[in-house]
């Protein structure tokens, strides 16, 4: 065997290391490119999730005002964790609409009592049909919907304190 061939395994191995090291050092990408961004919300109507707030329908989103659409559930722990951030957004004048996923009214009432209620309306999605329809695969997820009912941004996972200015910015963009 010629000398240089003996170095071949090392070269291949170095290539492997470079390949796998790249995703480790690269800052993790947090954008999710949903296929539905830029598309209008699908047609749906959800019954109210509790007796105090109205339910939601696609037409509610077409009044010219951008909103946040938050997919949550009382059984979801990160949803409780993001509640203060939603409260902060509401205080800053953002209208937040909730989709309550596979939930019971009494659990929801307790959840809202414990964590505060930032929602203007809450629709009950008992079988997750609307959740799938808007391209969400988990809870919590938050969408920015512009005044024409078009999905402008999708945030996967809980909203952290540092995400609040970013979401406000996205809402401002959606106004334009």
């Amino acid at each position, binding site marked *: *065997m010629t*000398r240089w061939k*003996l*170095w071949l*395994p*090392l070269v291949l*191995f*170095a290539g*492997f*290391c470079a*390949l*796998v*090291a*790249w*995703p*480790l*050092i690269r800052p*993790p*990408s*947090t954008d999710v490119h949903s296929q539905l961004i830029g598309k209008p919300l699908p047609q749906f109507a959800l019954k109210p999730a509790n007796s105090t707030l109205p339910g939601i329908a696609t037409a509610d989103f077409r009044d010219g005002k951008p909103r946040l659409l938050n997919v949550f559930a009382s*059984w979801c*722990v990160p949803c409780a964790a993001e509640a203060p951030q939603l409260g902060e957004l509401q205080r800053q004048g953002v209208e937040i609409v909730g989709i309550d996923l596979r939930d019971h009214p009494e659990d929801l009432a307790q959840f809202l009592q414990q964590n505060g209620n930032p929602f203007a309306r809450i629709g009950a999605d*008992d*079988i997750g049909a609307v959740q799938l329809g808007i391209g969400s695969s988990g809870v919590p997820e938050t969408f920015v919907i512009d005044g024409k009912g078009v999905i402008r941004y999708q945030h996967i*996972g809980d909203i952290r304190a540092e995400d609040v200015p970013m979401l406000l910015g996205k809402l401002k963009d959606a106004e334009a």
Partner: protein
Amino acid sequence: MIAELGLAALWLAAALALLQLVCGVMVVRRDDAALASVIRPLAVVQGALAALAFGALLLCFARFDLSVKLVAMNSRDAQPLIFQIAGTWGNHEGSMLMWVTIMSLAGALIALIERRVPERTMIATLATQAFVGLGFYAFLLIASNPFERLDPPAQQGLGLNPALQDIGLAYHPPTLYFGYVGLSVAFSFAVGALITRQVTPAFARAMRPWVLGAWIFLTLGITAGSYWAYYELGWGGWWFWDPTENASLMPWLAATALLHSVSVLAARDALRTWTIMLGVVAFSMSMVGTFLVRSGILTSVHAFAIDPERGAFILGLLALYVGSALVLFALRAGTVAEGERFAVTSREGALVVNNVVLCALLAIVLVGTLYPLVTEAYGVRVSVGPPYFTPVSALFFLPMLVVLAVGPLLRWRRDSLERIQRPLVLFFAIAVIALAGVWFNSSIGFLPLVGMALAAMLAVASFAPAQGRNLRRLPLAVWGMMIAHFGIAVALFGMAADSAFTVEKLVAAKEGDTVEIGPWLATLKTVEPVAGPNWTALEATLAVSYEGEPGKALRPQQRSFWAPAQKTSESALLTRWNGQLYTVLGDQAEDGRWQLRLWWKPFVTWIWYGGILIGLGGLLALIGRVGNDLKRRHAQVRIARRKRTAE
């Protein structure tokens, strides 16, 4: 107190490993008898200390000590005791400690018993073992201390991930770790032999039981893991070509190749550098596998699970070990004397073909697993799945089976196909008859068809080496080989039958409805809530009967764990000799009907029976080899004693 004791033992073990490495390097560079004599005892004490540390962690989990962070994060008192204990290795820190413990115990064992290899090679081997161990000790002590305390102690544990609350967890990771550690010993032997340039049959015989042992554990680990995924995940599939599975398959492929090449080296003193190379590759594959699973770089759909720091640490270790071994290989392999030569048509020739194909399969799996990383660098996200892996690997695997049937009949060094003409014709006839038989009786795809024909041929061919020999005097290792090869035929038949004949049905049923699936009738009787120790579930009762035989009850569940809150679907299975009925309870639709998913999977269980047979074959071979070694050593001791008395 126990946790502090464990941590102290771990630090001491790490210090001894460092000492073992330094002394080893000094002895290899310049012979020093006094220094050489401390290395074996060092390895033994280091093993004992690591075992002490692991024992301390086990005790913390068994006593449910919530002041230890790891226990609080991964355990809960409502869990059954077996899961309480299995929680020790059901997490990152604990499983790393388990790995390093098994590895130092293996080092202690070779230090105690291995006397065949020249002492200088042995010391280089133990130094390498310490070098590898040291990285893991550093990893534990610097980046993932399993004994970290919580102050104040937690009031309640968070609980073990429900998907892991299964008896499978109790044995699956330890099994794989035994396998990985066996390969680390093989790696140390390979590097040791490369350092001293003494690549001899004696070295191969010393290395072989470790490779064989590792290979048995990997085989059983993969078999069990595949069955676990099959019944726990509720998708009815038994292999998904998922990165985690590939991570365990790659070391197995490398170990299988190594197992065969080490046999050639032991028997014929051929394939010297190739065996060394495979020793390095096999261990690197086990570390690559660990890296891919632990770093999460391949499961980037869930960005939350990525832990780049730990991933970087493992990658650093991998680069250090494998990189330095490959540099050593490049510098030294050219100076290792060439081994014996052989003709193409010979036992060695067939084993080389086997090795080349296994390495090709390894490359196919590795490329497919890493390909998404390559495209991601260009901004394209892809997932590589069965449409790539299955046909491409079959392309290599199926022809290899022909070599597998013929190879064991060939003689060492030089042989001719004319000599074994009669069995060859027989094998060919069986394959053709099986092919025609299946072809005329069913309309199945090309791959399953070829798979079945080859399985039939291999089932007969695997026992051909016994033909004309006295079965009682046949060495255990030959029995092991025949049974392992037969196991491949059995597993292959199961795979082909499953992919060709599976019937699947997804229905919405209300109570009282009957569904027909293959030869089965299933009636949904009731759906009722039930409660377990730390979960509640909706349980369906299905009355099932096979071709009018008296019915049996199956109870698939939708289980909700409350600590941590998570839903799992527990499938219910009914096993017959000729297949399995697999049932899953889905969600309730708005009109009150229940989703039921049913599969009738003919002969699917043969896949795992085959896996067990392969492992059993390995075990017989191991017993045979170790037994022979012991006999040989006894004889040597007796001769030495006689010499002494004669003097």
